[in-house]
């Protein structure tokens, strides 16, 4: 399946970025073949509505699921509407996008059932 992981860099080996709307970039991975591409987050320096813009970007990449550390209410509403499953990679331990992908494949990551943080601008 096509999965997006929020990252602070430009490759699957870059550090995982725990924020969704304000993540530096998104890594689009095919979880079956392992092939990936990195995409800058257009919302990184948006004045407001980062969650909406980031969600539109992820939807535009054709992702079926996304892994991040936290989802604001606007991101949650947008991703839900787009039918994209939101997975949570909890904890603060430094790790790479590849580490998170491994966790996802191992079924270690739960799905977000609601926005996990208060609205931010």
């Amino acid at each position, binding site marked *: 399946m096509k999965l997006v992981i929020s990252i*602070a860099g430009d490759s699957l080996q870059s*550090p995982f970025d725990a924020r969704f709307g304000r993540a530096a970039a998104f890594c689009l991975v095919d979880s079956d073949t392992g092939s990936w591409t990195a995409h800058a987050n257009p919302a990184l320096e*948006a*004045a*407001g509505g980062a969650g909406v813009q980031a969600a539109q970007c992820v939807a535009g990449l054709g992702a079926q699921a996304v892994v991040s550390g936290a989802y604001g209410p606007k991101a949650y509403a947008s991703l839900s509407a787009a039918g994209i499953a939101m997975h949570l990679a909890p904890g603060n331990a430094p790790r790479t996008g590849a580490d998170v992908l491994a966790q996802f494949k191992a079924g270690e990551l739960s799905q977000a059932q609601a926005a996990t943080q*208060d609205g*931010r*601008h």
Partner: protein
Amino acid sequence: MMKQLIVLSGKGGTGKTSVTAAFAHLAAGGRLTGQVVIADADVDAANLELVLQPRVLETQPFQGGQVAVIDQDTCLVCGSCADVCRFDAIIERDGQYLVDPIACDGCAACVYQCPTESIRMEPQIAGKSYVSESRYGPLYHANLDPGQENSGKLVTLVKQRARLRALDEDRELVLVDGPPGIGCPVIAAASGADLALIVAEPTAAGVHDMQRVLGTLRHFGVPALVCINKADIYPEGAAAIETSCRADGVVTVGRIPFDATVASAMVAGEAVTAFRPEAPASLAVAAVWERVLAFLEAPA
């Protein structure tokens, strides 16, 4: 784990920047040596640089919002742009329609309305953002050109860059000097903060504005502490702040006395704690800093 601390006030001029500058000095000389990134998020009154004496390493133009521009050669002077503009930004003068770039909100309604496609949106350079090395660590700051809009966007940019720098270099603290008020720039500056310190004034106005900024922080889920500056100007007012905070479950972390040394330090371009460490205000700020640090380091 990197933390973000923001200093706010609600009411302007309560001493936010003087307190932030002193924190930067104390952090640089204490356990957080080399661990701090400083951000001045008060971009339309960016005063921290007057104390931290930054050496600018990098300057970037800041692209603000877009404004509409009318091509007079193809304009039919039909006025439909002015009809749809809700920001009073299109003015008719001498048989021409002109855009007031200061009033234009960048919504592009006129662009979609123009029958001859004579209007385009142009990005505006609205200020500059800087990366500097200051006497107390890296400083991210900016200057909004006078009268420009979008200070929330510039605030976000400054803070974002400071945060990325701290993440990159594994620094422990991003110290943010916030803007006054409770609106867009404050929301932008406080977003993502782990802790806010409100510098309140024991005045009728100060109490009122402190309560409004506390309400804003609660709304966005940012935990807050309060310290009282110029507390001895009106001790009853200081007591009233402490009572109001207690009722709201907000911790007060100290009183700073009115002290002429603060203005002298500002004139000298120094943090008050560096200028005269033994001055009453310096001792009080240092005590506040220790308590704030304890809250920052306490496991959530």
